[in-house]
C-alpha cells in the first residue's frame, strides 16, 4: 500500500519538476543563436519533443492509472537516453546544461524515493543505451579528426562523405523514432477518444433503457387496469355461476375448468406487473428479522396446503441494512414460495439469516459486513443444465402454466438493486439452496426504533404508484 502511494507521489513530483525543466529548456533553446547548428541544442529539442509527446500521452491517459504505470518505464528509458546523450555531446555554452542538471536532480530524487524497479531499471537502461550511442558517435567523429560530434546540416557541406553518410543515417533514425512516437501517440489518443465515445454510447443506452422502463411502468399501469378489470369480472361472475351449478354436472366441470384457466391468467398478469413495476420506493433501514417474519406469515396458507414445514433460523441482533423493505419482502417471499412448491408432503424449508464480517477486512475495527440469507429446501431440486438459466425472465422449470418464469427474475433484480449477490446450488432429488448476501455498510447496533413497522414504513413513495 505504501509503495503505491509513494509511486503516485513521485509521479506527481516528476511531472512538476519536468514541467519546470521543460520551460527552462525551451527558453534556453529559443534564446540560443545557433539553433540549427549546435548538437546540444539539437539534442535539447529532441528531449523537448519527446517530453511534449509524453505529456500529451499523459494528458490523454491521465485517468487511466494502469496505462500510466505501464508507460512510466518508457518515460524513464527515453529520459535516460537523452540525458546521457546530452552529457556526451560537448560544444555548447554551460547555460545549456542547466535544465539537464535539474532533470538529473529530479530523477535522483525520484530514484531515492520510489525504490521501484519500474523507474530505476528503465532509467539505467536508457542511460546505458545513450552512453553506447554517444560512444559510437565519438568514435565516428574522432576517426575523421573532428573535435566534437556535429551532425547537423551546418557541418554537412564541409564534412567528408563518410561523416555525411553517418549524419544522414543518424537523422533518418531520429525522424523514424519521432514519427513512430507520433503514430503511437495519435493511435493512443484516438483509442482514448473512441473508448470515451463508447462509454458515452453505453451511458446513452442505459438512459434509453431507463426511459424504456419508465414507459413500461406506464404501460403496465394501463395493462393492469385494462386486463385486471375484465379478468375480475370474469372470475367473479364465474364463481357466482359455479356456486349456482350442481357439482358433478357437465356444466360444473366446464365452468371449473374455465375458472382454473382464468386463475392462471390472473396469476400471470400479476407476475408480469410485479416484474414491470419500478421500485419507486425510498431506501430505509430495514430489519431482516421483521421481513422474514412477515414472509413466514404470508406463506402459511400455502404451506398448509402442501403439508410442509418451514423452519426459521434468524440470528439474534441482526443489524439493520438500508434497502427497500417491500422489495426484500417480495424477493424472499418468491424464493420461499418456490421452495414450498418444490417440496412434497412433509418436506422441509429452512430460512436462515445471519450476520458475517466481510471476507476482506481492512482491520479489526472494520465493521463492514454482510447479511447472509439462505433458503434451503429438500424438494426435487433443479437439473444442472437448467440452473444457469433460472434467473432469466420468462424461463420456468415448473410445468407449463404453473409458473410464469418471472419469480426469480424479480428476485434477481431486487437483489441487484441492493448491490447484493445471489447464488444457487441444487442437487436433483435432494433439494435446492439459494444464498443471498446483502452488504451492510456499518454494523450499527440494532435499534428497533430505527426500523419502523414493516407494514407502514413505506409511505412517501407510494403516491406515484397509486395513480397507476
Amino acid at each position, binding site marked *: 500500500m505504501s509503495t503505491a502511494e509513494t509511486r503516485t507521489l513521485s509521479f506527481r513530483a516528476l511531472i512538476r519538476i519536468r514541467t519546470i525543466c521543460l520551460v527552462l529548456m525551451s527558453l534556453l533553446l529559443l534564446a540560443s543563436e545557433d539553433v540549427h547548428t549546435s548538437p546540444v541544442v539539437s539534442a535539447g529539442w529532441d528531449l523537448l519533443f519527446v517530453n511534449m509527446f509524453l505529456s500529451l500521452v499523459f494528458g490523454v491517459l491521465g485517468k487511466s492509472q494502469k496505462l500510466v504505470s505501464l508507460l512510466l518505464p518508457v518515460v524513464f528509458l527515453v529520459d535516460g537516453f537523452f540525458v546521457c546523450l546530452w552529457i556526451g555531446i560537448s560544444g555548447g555554452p554551460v547555460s545549456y546544461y542547466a535544465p539537464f542538471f535539474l532533470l538529473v536532480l529530479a530523477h535522483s530524487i525520484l530514484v531515492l524515493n520510489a525504490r521501484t524497479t519500474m523507474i530505476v531499471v528503465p532509467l539505467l537502461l536508457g542511460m546505458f543505451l545513450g552512453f553506447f550511442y554517444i560512444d559510437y558517435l565519438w568514435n565516428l567523429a574522432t576517426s575523421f579528426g573532428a573535435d566534437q560530434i556535429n551532425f547537423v546540416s551546418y557541418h554537412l557541406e564541409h564534412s567528408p562523405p563518410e561523416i555525411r553518410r553517418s549524419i544522414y543515417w543518424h537523422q533518418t533514425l531520429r525522424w523514424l523514432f519521432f514519427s513512430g512516437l507520433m503514430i503511437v501517440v495519435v493511435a493512443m489518443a484516438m483509442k482514448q477518444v473512441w473508448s470515451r465515445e463508447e462509454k458515452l454510447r453505453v451511458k446513452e443506452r442505459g438512459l434509453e433503457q431507463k426511459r424504456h422502463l419508465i414507459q413500461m411502468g406506464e404501460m403496465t399501469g394501463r395493462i*393492469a387496469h385494462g386486463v*385486471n378489470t375484465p379478468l375480475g*369480472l370474469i372470475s367473479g361472475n364465474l364463481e357466482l355461476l359455479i356456486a349456482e351449478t350442481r357439482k358433478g354436472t357437465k356444466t360444473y366441470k366446464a365452468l371449473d375448468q374455465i375458472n382454473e384457466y382464468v386463475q392462471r391468467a390472473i396469476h400471470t398478469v400479476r407476475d408480469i406487473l410485479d416484474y414491470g413495476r419500478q421500485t419507486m420506493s425510498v431506501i430505509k433501514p430495514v430489519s431482516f428479522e421483521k421481513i422474514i417474519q412477515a414472509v413466514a406469515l404470508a406463506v402459511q396458507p400455502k404451506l398448509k396446503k402442501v403439508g410442509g414445514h418451514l423452519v426459521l433460523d434468524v440470528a439474534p441482533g441482526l443489524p439493520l441494512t438500508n434497502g427497500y423493505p417491500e422489495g426484500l419482502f417480495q424477493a424472499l417471499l418468491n424464493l420461499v414460495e418456490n421452495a414450498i412448491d418444490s417440496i412434497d408432503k412433509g418436506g422441509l424449508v429452512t430460512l436462515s439469516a445471519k450476520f458475517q464480517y466481510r471476507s476482506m477486512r481492512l482491520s479489526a475495527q472494520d465493521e463492514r459486513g454482510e447479511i447472509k440469507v439462505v433458503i434451503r429446501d429438500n424438494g426435487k431440486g433443479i437439473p444442472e443444465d437448467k440452473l444457469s438459466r433460472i434467473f432469466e425472465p420468462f424461463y420456468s422449470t415448473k410445468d407449463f402454466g404453473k409458473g410464469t418464469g418471472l419469480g426469480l427474475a424479480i428476485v434477481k433484480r431486487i437483489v441487484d438493486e441492493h448491490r447484493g449477490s445471489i447464488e444457487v446450488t441444487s442437487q436433483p432429488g435432494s433439494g435446492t439452496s439459494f444464498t443471498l448476501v446483502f452488504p451492510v455498510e456499518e454494523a450499527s447496533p440494532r435499534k428497533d426504533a430505527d426500523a419502523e413497522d414493516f*407494514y407502514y414504513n413505506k*409511505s412517501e413513495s*407510494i403516491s406515484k404508484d*397509486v395513480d397507476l
Partner: protein
Amino acid sequence: MKKKAPPKKASTKMKVIKPKIAPARLLVVDDEADFAKLIQTILNQVGYKVDMAISATQAIALQRKNAYDLALVDLRMPEMTGLELLQYLKARDRSIFVILMTAYGSFSVGIEALRQGACDYVAKPFKNKALKEKVAEALQRRQQYLREQHNHSSVDEL
C-alpha cells in the same frame, strides 16, 4: 325491487326483535358499472344491503341520503381518485369504513390506502370468498370501533 317488498316487512319485524342484526349498509363505487354490479350481487348473497354508484359524485349524493357502514371504492376513477373520495366520505361521516379496490394491486398501494384511512384494500381481480371475508372483517372492526367510541363518550359524559 318491487318483488322484494313483502319480505321487507319480515325484515322490519326482525329489526324490531333484534335491531342489532339489521343488515349492514354498503356502498360500492366503481366506474365500471358491471364490476359494481358484480360486487353488489356477491355481497347481496351474504345479506348486506348494497347500493352502487358508478361515479364519485353519485357516491357522494348517495351518502347524503343514506348512512353507510362500509364503502368499497375503486382507486382509479375518472373524476376523483379513490383516495380523494375516501377523504370526502370520511369527512362527512367519520364512522364510515372504507375498503379500497385496485386493479394495480401492490403492497405499496395497500399501505398508502391504510395510511389515508382506509381499513383495508383488495386487489382486483379477487376471489369472491376473499371479498366476503374482508367485508365481514371490516364490519366487525367497525362494530368494535363504535363500541370503543361509545365507551369513550360515556366516560366523557361522566
